[in-house]
């Protein structure tokens, strides 16, 4: 989620579409909004409301410095774990 939002300010439906486009078909809509809520509460995201031509105002999210740090930390962890797994599974 942080990686998607770090590309640029975006909103829930667009985040979900991006995740699905990247192959995360099983991600539930409610999980996305719940996670957004949790990340915002943790200070990793900030949001603003902007008018939409397609219904009520959209809530746009952006990554905060804390979120950027969290993303970097998560990316490092993932890279390390992924590297370790590759060593294990390679014949």
């Amino acid at each position: 989620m942080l990686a998607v939002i770090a590309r640029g300010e975006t909103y829930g439906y667009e985040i979900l579409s991006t995740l699905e486009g990247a192959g995360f078909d099983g991600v539930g809509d409610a999980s996305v909004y719940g996670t957004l809520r949790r990340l915002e509460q943790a200070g990793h995201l900030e949001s603003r409301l902007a008018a939409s031509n397609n219904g009520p105002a959209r809530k746009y999210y952006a990554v905060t410095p804390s979120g950027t740090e969290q993303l970097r930390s998560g990316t490092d962890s993932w890279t390390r774990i992924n590297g370790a797994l590759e060593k294990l599974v390679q014949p």
Partner: protein
Amino acid sequence: MIAEDYVRMVAFELRDLPWKMRRDLVSEIQGHLDELPAGTDLSAQLGRPHEYASELRDAAGLERRRGLIAFLRARRPRNVVLTVVALTLIGLAIGAVAWIDSYQPLAFAGGTQEPLDSRPSIGQAGVTVVFRKGHPFEYGITIQNTGRLTVRVLGVPTSVTNFYVGRLLMSKDQTGRLDELPLERFHPFDMKPGSFRWLVFKGVYACTTGIGGGGVGVTWETIGIRFGFLWRTATAAIPLDDPLAITFPKGCPSRPQ
């Protein structure tokens, strides 16, 4: 299921969350549903409302909240304020009605005009007078308004222990001595806080009590004063410092024999 119903049902499942948090979540869900293509089967796409709400809770780390504080926080602040104001006003109204219903400021003011030929009662406070049918009877007391609000004095109710027939008279307001001003026939009047006046029973002894045998008596220990305050009328039983005892040596049947 249309989007409005879906959102409403999800909101119901989240009803324990603080109002502002719930409003934001519901608004976001509403926005999300508006982005979906028309005709989307919401339950198939998102799960049933309670499943959606449950998934949302899990992802957001929102546990179900219980208790009075959670209940109040789940209400819209404006509604909580309005409810508190309404309950306060109702409580004040109930208190005001209860207070008005119990308000009784009339009291004996200390002045008494004893009947002619009365003498101190033996072994008890007050005076005693012997009933003599047809003879003049005059008895006066002072009453005062000890409260902070004006009441309307309406009269003196007829009692079964009356033993005279005649008129009820009264003095002008603020009359401390009975001989200061002439008396006038009683009529309802407003009694202001701190004011006082005389009420005088003037007539002749008469058989109205129904006392048949001799040697009995009646005692006025209180005088009932009918009064009105706002919408309420009531009778105040005003204790007398000097009870008035009347003895009937020969009895006094109420019906002529």
